[in-house]
């Protein structure tokens, strides 16, 4: 393996650098609609999808509760900071205090969900978290003292990030949080905790007999992912100024799963790649005559094709293409190079996540 060459300019790094550069210069290149709507939404959805991909790639837990936790943070912020809504608690707190408490509530709920689900594995884990997500949606739809069917609107955003103060600040805030989430989750994957988590993903029985607290690791990972999802939820209500049960319904839950699958369930980068593709399809398919009406059929077909053809998503497709271009001699390099650490090459990890055990 030519390690010296790969530490300079790999296709992954070039592509990554280009994307980061584009994201930073976006306000200069793209229209305001693109930046303030499409790209901001991409960053937010990417953050939620990243929390799912982190759990799936490093923890072997495909959680469908991430959207619920994101919604709980949003609803909590709405209840704490608004006044004058017909429904909800209308506490009218200071936005900053509201954010801290909202995130704390969301993480607490995530820990409760995690405590109940973390003893279950594979497909059971997916089912249990899906049920949590649907119950959270029904809860906010039914309980009028915190939301009710119409949700909560007029949620204040700190003046600094308000679009009237400067059109691009909110976008840069989401970009910054996205970057911190990306770097933070990659860092966690390299800590002893992250390595133990990956060990548990691959063989929980062996890790338990080595003396690791398997359930506790899974629970903490779930709490961390809940924190990331909660950040996404806060940014979402800043961006959208309102939140309703339909924001976190089954369709939304599956949309985030779809984003992760489109991007690739084994690499954090996939979260934002998938989110961008999803947002663009979501936005532009509406203009295409026959598709506009049957948008979800299109989404479902894309989902189906990706699961059937490339289960590791677009990032997987990219890596295989790059690997093929560079010849068969260095398949481990392209996957291991930019990968989020761990002894197992990313390609295999994707496979092991998908097959379950």
């Amino acid at each position, binding site marked *: 393996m030519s390690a010296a060459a790969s530490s300079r300019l790999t296709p992954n790094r070039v592509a990554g650098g280009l994307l980061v550069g584009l994201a930073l210069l976006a306000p200069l290149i793209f229209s305001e609609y693109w930046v303030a709507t499409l790209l901001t939404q991409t960053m937010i959805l990417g953050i939620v999808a990243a929390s799912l991909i982190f759990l799936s790639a490093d923890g072997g837990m495909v959680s469908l509760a991430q959207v619920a936790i994101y919604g709980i943070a949003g609803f909590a912020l709405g209840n704490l900071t608004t006044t004058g809504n017909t429904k909800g608690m209308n506490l009218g707190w200071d936005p900053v205090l509201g954010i801290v408490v909202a995130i704390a509530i969301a993480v607490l709920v995530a820990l409760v969900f995690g405590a109940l689900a973390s003893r279950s594995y594979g497909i059971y884990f997916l089912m249990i978290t899906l049920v949590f997500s649907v119950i959270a949606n029904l809860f906010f739809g039914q309980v*009028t003292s915190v939301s009710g069917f119409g949700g909560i609107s007029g949620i204040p955003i700190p003046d600094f990030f308000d679009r009237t103060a400067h059109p691009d600040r909110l976008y840069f805030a989401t970009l910054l949080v996205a970057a911190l989430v990306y770097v933070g989750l990659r860092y966690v994957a390299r800590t002893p905790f992250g390595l133990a988590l990956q060990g548990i993903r691959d063989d929980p029985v062996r890790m338990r007999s080595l003396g690791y607290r398997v359930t506790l690791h899974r629970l903490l990972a779930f709490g961390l992912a809940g924190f990331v999802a909660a950040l996404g939820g806060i940014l979402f209500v800043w961006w959208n100024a309102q939140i309703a049960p339909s924001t976190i319904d089954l369709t939304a839950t599956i949309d985030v799963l779809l984003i992760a699958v489109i991007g690739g369930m084994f690499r954090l980068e996939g979260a934002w790649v998938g989110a961008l593709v999803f947002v663009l399809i979501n936005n532009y398919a509406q203009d295409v005559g026959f598709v506009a009406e049957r948008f979800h059929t299109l989404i479902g*077909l894309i989902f189906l094709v990706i699961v059937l053809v490339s289960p590791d998503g677009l990032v997987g497709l990219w890596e295989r293409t790059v690997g093929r271009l560079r010849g068969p001699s260095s398949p481990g390099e392209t996957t291991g190079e930019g990968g989020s650490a761990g002894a197992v090459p990313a390609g295999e990890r994707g496979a092991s996540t998908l097959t379950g055990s």
Partner: protein
Amino acid sequence: MSVSLGRALRITGLVLLALVIAFPIVWVLFIASDTTFGPAVDDPKDFLITLLNGVTAAALYFIVASGFTLIFGLMRVVNMAHGAFFLLGGYIALELQRDLVPGAGSALGISSAQVSFMNWFLPLLAAGLIVGGVGLLMQQAFLRWNQGQELRQALITIAISIIAADQMLAHFGGVAKDISWPRTFDKFLDLQVADVQYTLTRLVILGVGLLIGGALWFWLKRTRTGMVIRAGVDDRDMVSALGVNIQLTFAIAFFIGSALAGIGGVMGGSFASLAPGVDGLWLLNSLVVVIIGGMGSLGGAAVGALLLGLTTNFAAAYLPADYTFYSIIFTFVLLAVVLAIRPLGLFGRPA
């Protein structure tokens, strides 16, 4: 020291569990302050009606969830399209009923007086067969060659359920519709107990649930195919190695499991209504029932359905009037209690 601490924790847990079980019972029977009906000892009639509502709802949960658990138990396939199959069955029967009933097609829909037993039963049968066929087709086209890749199969069925839900919205519209019960069933029955007049339709659902449960039990425990299925649940590869055509067994199980979703959809569409979103709700019901009962266990599905049916109905009826909106929490609490004690469900076994 640590042993006694463990014992102390265990005893605390058991006491808590006993409280969690005992308090709702005591509440419903004797206290129930500020509720619509008041304590059961004062109002046995409404208590009995709530109990029957719970049991009959459980019968419908069981019909749908038994198909889900049958498929999972044998093939380890979590069919996320099960809710979509439920809705599809309902819509198929609805269309057929409109074709069968003379003079139907007016905007007002069909009244039960126009519907004979066969006008209801034939659509039910047809919906079961068609949805069974659709399920079989899905299994053969998409799932068969992915065997063992549980997550991938679940994702495939999720994709199919998205497409199916959208196509159903396109063909049947977003307005809630319902299938008409036949006039034979559309009446009240005097139960001769505590003045209860109970609707016969709900008792029909209970009867069908018991019938299907009995038939499944007989099929799984007393026939050769059932024997193969039970063996396949325990060790698929071994059964296959013994020369049994396991693929044929898989196909049969998938057909029956999907057909049960379709039949459940007809019952559910007659009992409540059919609309977009109902599919997700019934996927949730099936998931909760099998998570509580244990995946792949028929008896577990029955117990899970009963617990869910009773919990939802009693929570809705016996919460203080200002708090009835919170009844959804009790579904979560039920799930939480079961998962805390048995992560694999009440009758679940490790794979």
